[in-house]
Structure formats: C-alpha cells, structure tokens
C-alpha cells in the first residue's frame, strides 16, 4: 500500500491497517530476536578469544615485574609505586588459597560424584546404642561446590585485571608518567569508576542470594535428588537428563509425566482466561466510568480500586473462608432455601470456574487503573466519524476501541499472561490446588498450576529434581515470551531518546 492510499483511508481503516501490519510483523521480529541471540554468543566468543590474546601478549611484551605478577598477584603494581593496589591484589590471592585449602577444595574434589561414602548405622561401643556414622552429604557438596566454582570465576576475573593493571603501570612508567597513588585511585571510585561503587553491593547481594541458589537449583535438575535420595541419610548423584525424560514420559496410572501434561494444559487455559477476562471486563468498566455523561466518576473508581489496596493475602484468605462448605456464602444460600455449592471440594470444573471468577474480583481493578489513561488517549475523531456513519456503541467497541487497545497494550497483555502462569498466590490461598480427587495426579490437585506443583513437590514429597526441572521449563516459556515483549516495545531501543 502506498502512502497516498494509506492517507485516503478512513480513520477506522487506518487503525485496522496498522493493527494488521503490527501482527504480520511478529514472525519477522521473532527471527530478528533469534539473530540477536546468535549475535550475542558470537560477540561473547570473540571477546573471550580477544581476552586470551591480550593475556598472552601482555605476558610476552611485559618486563620481569609484569611477568612475576602472573604468578604473584599485585607484584607489578607493588614495585611501581602502587603499594596499596598491589597489596590488595596479593590479599585476594592469599585469601583465595586459604579458602581453597581449608574449605573449597574438599568439596570441589567430590563435585563429580557428589560423594561416595554412605551414612551407615553401627552400634556405639561405649553405650551399646545404635548410632549413625555420617558419610558424605551430597547436598552440601553440591551447594559448596557451586559456591567454590563461583568464587573461582570471581578470582579469575581479579587475576586478569591484575595482569592488565601490572602491564598498564609498566607502560605508564615507560611513557614517563606517574602512576596514581592509592588516594587518587580511591577518589576515582567516586567519579570515573562510580559505577563500581554503585553496583558492588547490589551485585554482591544478588550473587549470593539469587545467582548462587539459582545455579544450585538448576544443577539439582540433573541429579537424582528426590524423596528416596535425601541427605544426610542417602547420597544422590548426577543422572543427566533423566529427570526431564521422566517429566515428559506419559504412562498409565499416577506419574509425573501425566501430571505435567495435565497441569500444563490447565496452566495455559488458566493463563488465557485469567488474562483476557480481566482485560475485557476491566476495559469495559473503565469505558463506562469514563463516559462523559456519567457522574460520580471518582466514587465508582474508588469502589473498584479499594480492593487493589487491601493486601492480597487478606482478600484471598477472606474469599477462601467465605466460599468454604461451611462459609458464609453457603450458609446464606441454605437459609434462602437453595442448594449449597461446594466451591472447592466437588468437581474440577466448579473449582476452576470459581478461581477464574475470584481472580476477576482481584484483577479487574488493576486493569481499570492501567487502561484508563490509554483509553482517554484514543483520538476522539475516530469515534466521531464512526457515529456519523451510524455505528452503535457495541460496534464502536469492537471496531475501534478493542483493536486500538490490543495494538497499544500487547506488551502489557503478554506481561500479565506471564504473571498469570506464575500466579502462585491466587491458587495457593484459594484452593491450595484442590480438589485432589484425581488419583492419576502425582502430588497435585485439579487446580494446581505448574508453580504451585513445583512448591508442593519440594515441600511435601522432597522431589527436588523434578521441581527444579519444572522450574526450568516454566522459565524457558516465560523468558521467551518476556524477551519477545521487550523486543517489541520501543523502550529498549529508544533508551536515550530523552537525554
């Protein structure tokens, strides 16, 4: 379509054309996304190769002191007037060796088998009572082994920085410049290297309490750590992709495979219904509240928004209690001579519909909050021309409002879709996964999502490896969706637009 043809379209058709173009571009964007990832790895490999080359050439070109600092860290800086910096490098090296000798190496040695000495029961010769002699603890070996590997990576980073610093100090002296003193160097951390100061504390916290546990759990997925292999009584070991195979293997009777498939189906159904029911109802309500002739706008808005402000666990616990078999809703229904409904304990269908409806009560106000601003921004002339053409409000909604909103809020929709896949609170607090009458489900109920199943697997049956594998699969799905959103939205590319 040429520009002139486009200009000649009516406003409604223009929106339609743009929306169509947007969706037809998605496959294209996907391939760009794939290429970006491929490029990322290509660059990474190139950087690593360049790093090694630099490492070698610095050794070849450097003088004796620089060469010594390839073994004794900080030597190059120490001998060239940067005493403090040199000592800091040396301290890092010494600390690392002390750590390895006293702690890390013992765990790292057993990392490939995760322990071989079993815990055994013997009779205590002194008291005559049975006692257990503890052998290797696979869990601790895995945890501390992972920690040691992470620390080693950090030290390698410091080590490379040390060789660079030594070489630079040498070059500076050769060029007749003076090297920075410790004081100047420290002052630079408040200016030129301010990002180091700002990032070190958060990065440290995140490494220890997010990255380390995450690496540990990812590794768990490749071991046999389940209910039968629980330390300290038993050992577990590496099993490769066995756990993933079990998750995908659908057999007769209660199995992890069957549970995984049926919970995945329900998770997707849930995510679709939860996202779109909230979206549509919230948008229609926002439109109603913002209609020009409607009065008491702030009253209506407050009525809905107040449920957002109340902490979610209060409102969900309250709902859970009200809808119990002996809860207030059923008591009142009985009083009115109607059949009480067992919301959470009868069939899967009733429980599922209930959670979707309750989720609307929780989620619609959020949509109202978030869409109001965008709805007010829809160009008024679109509606005007539609009205002149005689379109009814319903037609206007489906022909103008909905396409426009879908176009503008796709990132928001994908985000809330991902959020609903991970919507732990609603399911856990409302039904706790129940009803659990299906004997084929392993450690799960009919309304369990993958994330609540993950939680139950770790808390109730100690199936850590299955839980970790499920977590990784959920992550892959969510991460792909989120990265696509991020690429689709402009904010990542136009970062500098304002500055």
């Amino acid at each position, binding site marked *: 379509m040429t520009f002139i043809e486009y200009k000649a379209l009516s406003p409604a058709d223009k929106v339609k054309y743009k929306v169509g173009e947007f969706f037809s571009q998605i496959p294209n964007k996907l391939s760009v996304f794939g290429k970006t990832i491929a490029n990322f790895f290509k660059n990474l490999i190139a950087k690593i190769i360049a790093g090694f080359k630099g490492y070698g050439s610095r050794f070849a070109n450097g003088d004796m002191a620089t060469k010594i600092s390839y073994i004794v860290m900080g030597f190059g800086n120490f001998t060239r007037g940067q005493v403090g910096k040199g000592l800091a490098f040396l301290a890092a090296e010494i600390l690392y060796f002390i750590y390895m000798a006293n702690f890390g190496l013992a765990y790292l040695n057993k990392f490939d088998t995760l322990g071989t000495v079993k815990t055994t029961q013997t009779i205590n010769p002194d008291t005559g009572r049975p006692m257990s002699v503890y052998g290797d603890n696979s869990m601790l070996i895995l945890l501390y082994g992972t920690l040691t590997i992470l620390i080693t990576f950090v030290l390698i980073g410091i080590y490379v920085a040390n060789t660079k610093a030594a070489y630079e100090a040498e070059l500076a002296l050769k060029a007749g410049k003076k090297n920075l003193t410790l004081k100047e160097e420290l002052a630079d951390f408040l200016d030129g290297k301010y990002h180091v100061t700002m990032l070190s504390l958060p990065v440290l916290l995140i490494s220890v309490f997010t990255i380390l546990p995450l690496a540990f759990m990812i590794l768990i997925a490749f071991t046999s750590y389940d209910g039968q292999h629980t330390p300290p009584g038993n050992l577990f070991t590496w099993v490769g992709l066995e756990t993933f195979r079990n998750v995908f293997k659908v057999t007769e009777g209660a199995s992890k495979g069957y549970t995984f498939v049926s919970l995945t189906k329900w998770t997707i159904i849930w995510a679709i219904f939860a996202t779109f029911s909230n979206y549509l109802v919230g948008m229609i309500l926002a439109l109603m509240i913002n209609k020009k002739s409607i009065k008491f706008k702030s009253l209506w808005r407050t009525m809905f928004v107040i*449920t957002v402000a109340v902490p979610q666990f209060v409102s969900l616990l309250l709902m859970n209690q009200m809808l119990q078999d002996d809860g207030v809703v059923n008591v009142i229904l009985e009083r009115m001579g109607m059949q009480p409904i067992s919301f959470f304990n009868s069939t899967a269908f009733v429980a599922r519909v209930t959670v979707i409806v309750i989720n609307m009560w929780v989620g619609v106000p959020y949509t109202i909050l978030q869409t109001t601003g965008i709805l007010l921004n829809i160009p008024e002339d679109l509606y005007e021309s539609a009205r002149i053409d005689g379109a009814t409000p319903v037609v206007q909604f489906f022909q103008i409002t909905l396409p426009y909103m879908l176009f503008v809020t796709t990132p928001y929709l994908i985000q809330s879709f991902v959020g609903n896949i991970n919507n732990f609170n609603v399911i856990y607090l409302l039904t706790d996964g129940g009803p659990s009458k299906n004997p084929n489900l392993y450690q799960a109920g009919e309304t369990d999502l993958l994330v609540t199943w993950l939680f139950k697997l*770790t808390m109730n049956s100690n199936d850590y490896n299955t839980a970790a594998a499920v977590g990784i699969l959920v*992550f892959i799905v969510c991460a792909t969706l989120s990265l696509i959103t991020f690429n689709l939205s402009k904010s990542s590319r136009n970062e500098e637009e304002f500055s």
Partner: protein
Amino acid sequence: MIKSYKLSRTISDIVIYVVLGGLGLLWVSPLVWLVLHSFRKEGGVSVPYVFPKEYTLDNYLDLFTKTEVFDYPRWFLNTFVVAVFACIISTLSVLMVSYAFSRLRFKSRKTFINIGMVLGMFPGFMTMIALYYLLKAMNLTQTLPALVICYSSGAGLGFAISKGFFDTIPRALDEAATIDGATRNEIFWKIILPMSKPIIVYTVLTSFIGPWCDFILVKIIMGDKRDNFTVAMGLRKMTEKEYKQNYFKQFLAGSVLVAIPITVLFMKMQNYYVEGVTAGGVKG
C-alpha cells in the same frame, strides 16, 4: 428524532449506572462484610445473615490481650521491624543500580542490564529451597534477619521503573555539573536524588508493603517458630482447621488492622505511582 436520541442516551446512561452500581456493590461487599463481622459478638465462623446482631470491640481487644496462643502484637512488631530494614536496603539497592544503569556509561553496561532482566524471569520459588539451606549454613534460619535478607537481597533486579524515571532527567544537567567540577558522586546526591522524589517515595512504599503481604518465605524460614512469625503468616495460621472455630473473628479483626495502614499507604503510593510511571514509561 432529537428527542429519541436523547431518550436512548438517557436509557444507556441508566443501564450504565445500574451496571456500575451493581458490580461496585459486588466488589466492595466482601470488604464491608469483613469490617462488619470483625465487630460481631455472636456466632463462630459464619452466621446466616448479613448484619451482625450485636457489636463488640472484644475481637480487637482479644488480639492484644489474649496472646498465649497467637501473639498478634508481637507479629505486628516483627513485621514492622523487618519491613523497615528491608525497605532501607531495597531502596538503596534499587536507586543505586538504576542510577548506574541510567546515568553512568561503562563497559558491559548492556550485558549487566540483560543479565538482570533474565534473572528476574526465573520463578522465585525455585531459589527458595537453596536459599533456605544457605541461610541454615549461616545459622540464620528462624530469625528475623533471614527475612530481611530474603526480601531485600534481590531488590536490585527491580530497577526497570526507576531507571525509566532517571532516563527522563536531561543529561545536560549532569554535563553542566561536571563542567563546574562536581564528581559523579556529588551529582547523584545533590542533583539527581532531590529531583526524584516521586520515584523514591514509590520505591520506599512498595518495598515497605512487600513484607506485610508475603507468607510463603516466612513459612519456609520460620517453620514452627511462632514467636518470629509475621502478620500474614500468623493470620493464615488462624484460619487453619483446628483454630478456625475459636479464632475466626479474631482473624477478621486482625485482617482489618493490617489492611488499614497498608491501604492508606497504597492510596498514597498510587499518586506517586502515576507520576513516576507516566514520567518513566511514556516511551511505552
């Protein structure tokens, strides 16, 4: 013709009023029920009528006087202390990370941002078990500092909104200050922070509210050590089968007491949220 147009408009307005009124009532009714019945004197879990027959303050007083089984005041204090510390650490982390990502230019900045985004996409529950053993190795399980660590350690990953806000502050300000001889440190404290009140208030409030609403981490870390429960965990305990019959009305009263301050704070935050996010998120 014009008359009928007016008529149809009034009809549609009336329909909208009815729908809004009906749904609005439906939306607030559970909360109204919560408040009303927290003052109820008679009955146990549920009564078959909407308005209580007799009102009393006993449910509230019992929360603070009968503390042998459920020590509500202590939980409230626990939660408050945890929330204050978590809030300080989180706010600092978030502001520091987002300032570095937004205003400073350094090698591998993009890599850091991408790693941060990917880390944020793992389901939080995956790390909980490992976190538990890590805290156990540090001898911190069943203590309040463990909760502070859990709530605030990952805060730096939530840099997106405040980074967006910092991005909107003109860089010319930084440049002018640099020419006048200010270091980056001085720019951060003296120029950027004073201009960022909405986003600071927003970050403070969200990180303060967080600990009040979570109970999963508390459940894992505290186990059965009731003295160190937070309010959310304690209230959930009250609704368990063996306690429900005796403590349900106290549960209602306790919920109201938590909900009031959080609701007020949330409403406050709402104003800043709109300011902060529209400023930070116009780029969509």
